């Protein structure tokens, strides 16, 4: 770089003002404004012949993006004045009283953080809070996981599940030879966008069978069986979103064998550990069986639901590698993905999680509160199933109690959903998905009435 006029002294401020003014005044085409005495800025504002100026925006061609369909449900719900309205679109836990819940143990952890005057708000390392990362790996993989004991796992703090998926996807797009990811049909609406923007190409494998409202296991095996060798496969670790349909343990074992035999790379999305069955270990079993066979995988973990930390964006990406050396190199490359995205992750939520996971008593309290949430959801499932049976509602509704986690794929079609919204003020997504978290003992009868009416009067 060679500064060109380094030897002469720079023009004085008044010189520059004069020359700027002169430039403005001289060519007649430029001054479509008030005369020489005018303040430069006023003249600039009114002149329309300046290149690219005149108030035209480089972004004037940008069109408005379509509304988020799930958000649209809540917007419509909020507008409805009916006293019996029910919001079953929301993907967040609600109490029996229909209120959001902050866990007691989270409040305790928060208070600890506030009371600790020595706490600072310095930047975390790029990979996040070290203690949080260690605990998170142990939580999902098991404290005695051979992969952890052999130092073969790299875990980096990310922004909840979304952030973990995106960082993992970007890493794969840069460092993995296969850039196709297979995702289940259907899946969480954000999955295809996350992976496409990460640089992967998205394909689907059959998953949900509308006829049985269960797993299309044959279709799944066929589609993964014909995937190119080495392709990435997204697996919902438990409580599949949006269907609530999970493979059995035996089916998981077959999936694992197929994946390993075709060298497919499993990428687990674990957003509901502990929230599905009520047991943290049980919900982690499929992932642990994959890790136990010595192979590699990625795991995106979220604490949004199971610790109720939704808005604090707490999650972790773990990559289980064959050797410690590979894990270390992989971690160094993950940093290069993260640094130009947001530099380092937010400290608050991770500090809460670490406080809970490091303290035996708080950890136990957490497992109890977690089980209570899961149990309430399961109870809602049974109550709804019983209510439909009591009404003699036509159809097999056993899928309500067979499906697991926050959501139920009712099997209702969009006309039936529209009917339920219009006549019964029930708000849900048009694919027939309901959030069991939005139900209470008090509101189950109303929903059962609505479903009964929809099924008998609308086809």
């Amino acid at each position, binding site marked *: 770089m060679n500064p060109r006029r380094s030897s002469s002294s720079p023009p004085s401020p008044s010189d520059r003002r004069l020359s700027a003014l002169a430039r403005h005044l001289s060519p007649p085409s430029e001054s479509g404004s008030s005369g020489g005495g005018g303040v430069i800025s006023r003249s600039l504002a009114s002149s329309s012949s300046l290149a690219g100026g005149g108030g035209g925006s480089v972004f004037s061609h940008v069109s408005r993006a379509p509304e988020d369909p799930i958000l649209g449900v809540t917007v419509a719900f909020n507008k409805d004045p009916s006293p019996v309205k029910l919001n079953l679109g929301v993907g967040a836990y609600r109490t029996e009283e229909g209120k959001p819940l902050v866990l007691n143990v989270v409040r305790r952890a928060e208070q600890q953080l506030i009371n600790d005057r020595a706490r600072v708000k310095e930047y975390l390392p790029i990979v996040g809070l070290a203690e949080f990362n260690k605990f998170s790996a142990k939580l999902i993989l098991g404290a005695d996981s051979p992969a952890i004991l052999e130092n073969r796992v790299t875990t980096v703090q990310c*922004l909840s599940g979304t952030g973990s998926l995106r960082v993992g996807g970007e890493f794969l797009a840069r460092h993995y030879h296969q850039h196709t990811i297979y995702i289940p049909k259907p899946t969480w609406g954000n999955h295809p966008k996350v992976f496409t923007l990460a640089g992967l190409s998205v394909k689907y494998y059959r998953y949900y069978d509308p006829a049985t409202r269960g797993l299309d296991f044959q279709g799944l095996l066929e589609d993964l069986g014909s995937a190119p060798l080495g392709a990435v496969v997204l697996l919902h670790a438990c409580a599949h979103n949006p269907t609530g349909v999970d493979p059995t343990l035996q089916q998981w074992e077959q999936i694992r064998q197929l994946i390993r035999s075709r060298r497919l790379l499993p990428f687990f999305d674990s957003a509901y550990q502990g929230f599905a069955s009520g047991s943290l270990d049980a919900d982690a079993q499929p992932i642990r069986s994959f890790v136990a*066979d010595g192979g590699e995988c990625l795991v995106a973990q979220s604490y949004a639901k199971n610790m*109720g930390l939704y808005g604090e964006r707490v999650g972790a990406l773990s990559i289980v590698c064959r050797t410690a050396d590979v894990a270390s190199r992989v971690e160094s490359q993950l940093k290069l993905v993260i640094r130009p995205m947001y530099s380092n992750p937010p400290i608050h939520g991770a500090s809460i999680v670490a406080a809970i996971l490091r303290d035996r008593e708080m950890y136990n309290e957490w497992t109890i509160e977690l089980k209570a949430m899961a149990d309430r959801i399961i109870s809602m499932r049974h109550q709804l199933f019983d209510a439909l049976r009591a009404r003699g509602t036509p159809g097999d509704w056993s899928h309500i109690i067979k499906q697991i986690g926050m959501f139920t794929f009712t099997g209702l079609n969009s006309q039936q959903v529209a009917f339920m919204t219009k006549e019964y003020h029930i708000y849900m997504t048009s694919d027939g998905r309901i959030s069991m978290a939005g139900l209470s003992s008090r509101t189950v009868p109303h929903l059962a009435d609505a479903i009964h009416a929809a099924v008998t009067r609308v086809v």
Partner: protein
Amino acid sequence: MAVRAGATSRILSRSSVVGARSVSSCWRSVEPAPKDPILGVTEAFLADPSPGKVNVGVGAYRDDNGKPVVLECVREAERRIAGNLNMEYLPMGGSVKMVEETLKLAYGEDSEFIKDKRIAAVQALSGTGACRLFADFQKRFCPESQIYIPVPTWANHHNIWRDAHVPQRTYHYYHPESKGLDFAALMDDIKNAPNGSFFLLHACAHNPTGVDPSEDQWREISYQFKVKGHFPFFDMAYQGFASGDPERDAKSIRIFLEDSHAIGIAQSYAKNMGLYGQRVGCLSVLCEDEKQAIAVKSQLQQLARPMYSNPPLHGAVIVSTILSNPDLKSLWLKEVKVMADRIIGMRTALRENLEKLGSPLSWKHITEQIGMFCYSGMTPEQVDRLTKEYHIYMTRNGRISMAGVTTGNVGYLANAINMVTKSS
């Protein structure tokens, strides 16, 4: 059944053999990434057992005892929030209240653009996240565009636009001989860039040089931008932190707004509110009208959704609590001024110490530069000597973080700098 079980166990054993035999990893050829240059400085500092060691690499504020600071206004805001927040998701665009208050800081309390709802704005993950969202937005909607970046700049700027796949050009900025602004070359680069180019500008307290254009120079830059139809994107990471007065530090932006530029701004609360690790910031784009602002905001959200869905809550609520409560806001303004004044005081002290030592070189740039960093003009070799012989840690480009200078170490630092530079 038995046959099937046998088949299963054969498949099982075959796959475990497959697992054991192929010990090669999916990532066997992944290279170890180069270490972050700035992080390496802190690591080396921490590893040094010398009792008199000094860390002037750190890009975070330290008090006169060399300790990190949590502002009192922040502590008070946290106390008010604690126990009251439910932790529900923020909207994709973040906290509306926090964004509103943040726009007032940048655009002015009574800005007509805010009144006319012409600003598309979303909460972002501090300054980095705001720049990255903008870069992704620029790529998506102006795919043929490039970004002009000053030389030098914060290293991560290059990474951000590279990962967004936006090609980069550079423009002259720092003038090594004068340790000031290379204004003439800068203006040439602005004129020679194709019409309608995107430029990254540091609104105040340029990182890493501390060299800012004067007000008159900003006016000329703005004028030339108008002539060329360039798009100005401001990275404002130090509002309030540079001069001690947030309104004054936003002057460059206000000049461009007066000149009717449609600008973009990345704002950060990392330094001026000490919220570093909370990752709180804002990206805004000034649009032609409300309709366009709605459209642009919706598209920014479409970029945030597949990156992190919605931004973190806690830091945003701290900011909005402080800025929307007059007592906390005025406390914040006082605390920001204290930080800025301490830095300015250290600049004066360092320069005076060097001059008193009879250094043959000119050190006036120390007090002419502004913000957290001072571009000392030392060579990498001189920096290495500072580290080896005096246990003083800084980045090898000679950048000193004035935040790491205290009344306790300024004399030692001046002496060491004098010793390694006096023969040059």
